[in-house]
């Protein structure tokens, strides 16, 4: 059996990444990146939000799209979990519901790449039970 990985092995990953990053355009401003927030409260987690978040992180990397993927709490759309909020640079956030790996793939290919809307958008005027 091979050697178990340790933090010392992280150095290699870091060095490879530094090379890759220096080739990227210098755009450290988060406003210029695609932002994805995955709702990760009890409702989201129980519906598979983690797999969706894993998918976005891996696929943005594979498809070479610079994006920030983070977590958010319950947005009140428990019925439509997993939900994700996608903000393209300079645009209003859009919330998609019932997201699984297939829908996430559609969101990346159609919405993130081309700005085309895909099914399952939760209208912004939708009110949660106690909007305060």
């Amino acid at each position, binding site marked *: 059996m091979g050697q*178990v*990985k*340790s*933090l*010392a*092995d*992280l*150095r290699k*990953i*870091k060095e*490879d*990444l*530094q090379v890759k990053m220096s080739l990227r355009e210098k755009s450290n401003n988060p406003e210029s990146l695609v932002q994805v927030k995955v709702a*990760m*409260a*009890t*409702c989201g*987690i*129980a519906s598979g939000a*983690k797999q969706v*978040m*894993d998918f976005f*992180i*891996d696929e*943005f*990397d594979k498809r070479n799209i610079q994006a*920030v*993927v*983070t*977590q958010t*709490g*319950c*947005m*009140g759309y*428990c019925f439509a979990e997993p939900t994700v909020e996608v903000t393209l640079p300079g645009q209003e956030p859009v919330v998609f519901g019932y997201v699984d790996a297939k829908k996430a793939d559609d969101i990346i290919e159609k919405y993130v790449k081309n700005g085309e809307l895909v099914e399952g958008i939760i209208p912004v005027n939708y009110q*949660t*039970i*106690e909007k*305060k």
Partner: protein
Amino acid sequence: MMKDFAMHIMDIAQNSVSAGASEITVEIFESERTDLFALTIRDNGKGIPADMIDKVTDPYVTSRTTRKVGLGLPLLKQHANSTGGSLMLDSAEGKGTEVRATFGLSHLDRQPLGDIAGTIVLLAAANPQIRFVYKHSTDTGSYIFDTVEVNQMLEDMSIAEAPVIRFLREMIEENLKEIKISG
């Protein structure tokens, strides 16, 4: 119903994130000898007010305003109780909260562990300002993962970069296998 412990951890740790914690520790202790599985999640967040502490395992009590039910702790409690274990809460306002749940390790209703490595790394990547410590002990040995050490190694590189996330997940998985964690 949560399908595995990884989901519980993701869920309860979000409470700590919402409570403004800067340090969150997830600790798992399991022993075949004593047939015990214990999950502890500790934070230094704002704590739970004394008049709330007895009520938080009631599904109709939640501090949020977007909906009227909070199921995170009740689900964990139900899971623990169904395996002959229990849920204990210790909290001091302004100091932090400790959630400790015990389970019968070999009990049929104990859910599997699930992707704990991936969950810890996702939490760390999504909340880079928070220090996450994960300790796992078995009869064979123990393993500690600490994001402070990760960040020292990474220097100015973000823990949220996909290759870093992938590496850390594999590293934790391999180390957990070494100490023979249960399924």
